[in-house]
């Protein structure tokens, strides 16, 4: 089931959000060893997790976290313009129609095949969400291995600057343009929402 939590929504579904913050702690802190704040020893939350953030969260029928992504507005502080300006040759892209995708998170409990299903469904949801909300581009920061996977999703990507070594990793910033052709480009690259998760999507809509 896809949950889209947007600024201005009725009080957020706490359980879904909580599960996502816990999953993020497990992935980004425990697994990837990112140096990011942890709240109450359980939840990975930083200053960008505020009322202005949008979340796309995939859960199973019981509400357990499968995957999630955080979208930040780019006309206010976000990751690229706060910490990684040097990754952009011409400054971070910003404006009301550009969102930064951060904390793309696949639950650690997923098996390899499920990970791919959840990943593909989440990527498709990102494109759909952009089209529904008039977002024309996403910006993102990626380590090189993940960068190659993002390219392989088939959508239109552009480097925002040259890769740089930051905190022991080689990072690059990129811009992903979203337009009416994007869903077809994703499908052509083999990225499609999983049948099971799509059924849930329709039920939720």
């Amino acid at each position, binding site marked *: 089931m896809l949950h889209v939590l947007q600024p201005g929504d009725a009080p957020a579904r706490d359980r879904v959000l909580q599960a996502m913050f816990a999953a993020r702690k497990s992935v980004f802190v425990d697994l990837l060893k990112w140096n990011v704040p942890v709240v109450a020893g359980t939840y990975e939350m930083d200053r960008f997790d505020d009322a202005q953030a949008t979340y796309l969260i995939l859960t199973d029928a019981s509400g357990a976290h499968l995957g999630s992504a955080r979208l930040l507005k780019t006309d206010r502080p976000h990751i690229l313009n706060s910490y990684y300006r040097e990754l952009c040759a011409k400054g971070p892209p910003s404006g009301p129609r550009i969102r930064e995708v951060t904390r793309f998170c696949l639950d650690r409990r997923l098996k390899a095949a499920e990970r791919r299903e959840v990943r593909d469904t989440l990527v498709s949801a990102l494109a759909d969400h952009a089209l529904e909300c008039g977002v024309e581009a996403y910006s993102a920061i990626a380590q090189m291995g993940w960068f190659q996977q993002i390219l392989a999703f088939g959508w239109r990507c*552009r480097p*925002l600057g040259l890769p740089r070594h930051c905190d022991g990793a080689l990072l690059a910033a990129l811009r992903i343009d979203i337009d009416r052709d994007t869903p077809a480009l994703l499908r052509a690259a*083999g990225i499609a929402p999983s049948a099971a998760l799509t059924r849930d999507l329709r039920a939720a809509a």
Partner: protein
Amino acid sequence: MRLHQVALQFARVVEAAGDADELARILLAITLELGFQYFALSHHVDVAVVGDSAIRLHNYPAKWADYYDAQTLGVSDPVHRASHVTSVGFRWSQMSQMIPLTARDQRILELGRTQGIGDGFTIPAHVPGEARGSCSFAIETGRPVPETTLPLAQLAGGFAFEAARRLWSGRGHRGETDAPQLTDRQRDCVLWVARGKGDWEIGRILGVSEETVARHVKQACARYGVSKRTSLAIRTLFDGTLSFTDIFRR
């Protein structure tokens, strides 16, 4: 700033490449612009076995390419092996710090140098569920590696590999759709096979009989068309049914 313009230009032109020949011409131009002389874009497989379905594009001297194929270096090439332990571009001269180099590896590198291929820079390209691949840029023996353009080479290699992937899949070579599918129970058994357990042990772990495990493993082998458990484990790792994380997680 200027390098970034070049990176954007690279991304645009490789994306527009309509076929492999065009991509090869573009890659050569990029290679020279970056200060290298040779490029090699490939899936890390034995080309003689896999044939056209594997990505392969290079401008190495024909004599070297023939030798390379004759020795089936596609799978054992030290450059390829080194690119499996990192997601970041590396210089060939750094390889000995990344993987153990055998005497044969040293001979291959030396032979490459006598054929005019000196140091190089390789960008790994791994898409889960597909053969690993890479894009290498190499210089003629005796010339220095163009240090300043390496970040650009990193990006160019990534985009070039993706362009090749798109062109090759357009030829209907992706072949993921009819991939074998295991039941959850078969997969559980294969996971323990990959962890080195025998049928009896797996039976104890999963709470079923040894015979049941043997049957699951046999049926899983049948679905993949292989007869050995080792081949089964490798195939499931390769297509993403299992991941290395699954195997090492406790």
